[in-house]
């Protein structure tokens, strides 16, 4: 967790940068990837073989992609539904990306307008707490699903 925080602290130094390629445009360079010199090296921070965080920084934007631990089928389905729920409300979240990057479950896109409107250390706090909570949420949901399945099966089989 500390590594992610330190990396975010070092890379979330964003400035407004007008496009070099198209006039009057001011777009997140990490999404367009048009000029190599404006992108910083992407960093992968793995927590285990199946979990990890990918951070792609650039001059005016940062993309963080998270791969959540999914050890069985139920977790896979739960993760997919949970991330889909969040991503459909990406407008409200402001820093969430509607589609995750290939190979990851959820992605955030933070641009210089976000850092101008919100405190940088608060954005970092939010991402770290999100990482902490998402594993717990998936586990809780899995337990809830199992408990519901058990109680409905019990009630059904009482008739026999």
């Amino acid at each position, binding site marked *: 967790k500390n590594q992610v925080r330190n990396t975010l602290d070092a890379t979330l130094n964003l400035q*407004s940068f*007008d496009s070099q390629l198209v*006039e009057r445009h001011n777009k997140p360079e990490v999404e367009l990837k048009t000029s190599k010199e*404006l992108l910083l090296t992407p960093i992968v921070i793995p927590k285990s073989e199946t979990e990890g965080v990918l951070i792609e920084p650039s001059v005016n934007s940062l993309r963080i992609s998270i791969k959540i631990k999914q050890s069985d089928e139920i977790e896979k389905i739960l993760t997919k539904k949970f991330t889909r729920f969040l991503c459909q409300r990406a407008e409200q979240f402001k820093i969430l990306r509607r589609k995750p990057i290939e190979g990851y479950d959820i992605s955030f896109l933070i641009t210089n307008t976000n850092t101008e409107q919100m405190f940088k250390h608060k954005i970092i*706090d939010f991402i770290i707490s999100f990482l902490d909570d998402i594993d717990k949420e998936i586990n809780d949901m899995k337990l809830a699903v199992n408990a519901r399945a058990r109680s409905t099966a019990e009630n059904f089989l009482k008739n026999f």
Partner: protein
Amino acid sequence: MTDISQISTFPITCHSWNADKSLVALSLNDNDVRIYKRDGTGKWNCLHTLEGHSNRVTGIDWGVKNNKIVTCGADRNAYVWQLQDNKWKPTLVLLRLNRAATCVRWSPNEAKFAVGSAARIISICYYEEENNWWLCKHIKKPIRSTVLSVDWHPNNVILAAGTSDYKARVFSAYVKEIEAKPEASTWGKKLVFGNLLAEFPAGTGNGGWVHSVSFSPNGNKLAWVGHCSSIAAADSASDNQVAILDCNLLPMVTCLWVTENSIVGAGFDCQPLLFSHGGGQLSLVAGLDSKVSSKEKTVTAMSMFKDMDKKGAGEVSTSVATKHQSAINEIRSVSKGSKGVNKISTSGTDGQMIVWNLDSLEKSIEGLRIS
């Protein structure tokens, strides 16, 4: 001691003082330039709003000699504003750029100014008397990426530029139409327009984008700060010897020489830092905000939403320990004393403008010595 002004909740993109430092022109991350005046109670009031740009204003410079303000914006234009009948009237400058302008500075004698742009070009503009307009000449080679900052040498002819292709360069910007031939300088003898006099890397290794360049008061030294968290200085009097310091801090985006041997840099660490250059070496002396005290800041709506989102009790502090709550993006000199610049102003993305009194800070902060 340090004079803190919360001008607005919007980020201050850039600022510039007038000759007697009673008025400051700044831009609040939008298309207008506002001129603020301090009233009796110390509050800043907006005196004039200069509307003209159709896109974000990226650079402002107030000429202390001619009382003209030059501004440049992301709409590829620059305007020169003149005060007539207590109103500021703009004059469009033909920059002939096809990308956004990023920074602008008057030359020391204020007969010309330089504009850096995302078109990989520096535009040097001068006034042509016969046609009553501003013309420009371009410096193109060998710039390969956006020009992030420009600074003039005191001899009015040499210009330094920091670009996002990881280099700081020194050019000759001698415009023969309006100037007499300059004398040879320590930076170079061939002063043809657009001649590259020196090129320096941003830091050790690959380096980073050079956010800001600054000439020392007598012009012999050049300092630049890069995104690789480094600050470097070259001394043209000792054969362009370069001293680089890789700091263990967040990158700086602006720098200013206060004396011939001291540089103040500021950036994402939210406080100005004093560096000393001597004997071919650069070293960090101290931060100007060392006495950190928690300050209650106005909470933005978004940060409040995020706080409510966070689980767990405990005090959620929304303020940072330094005076600036967010990154500093410009340093300007406010007044000069016997040793050099003794007051500087910093503006940041938290909407604050803070004036630091270096003389009194030198007395109060241990270890802070301006050489």
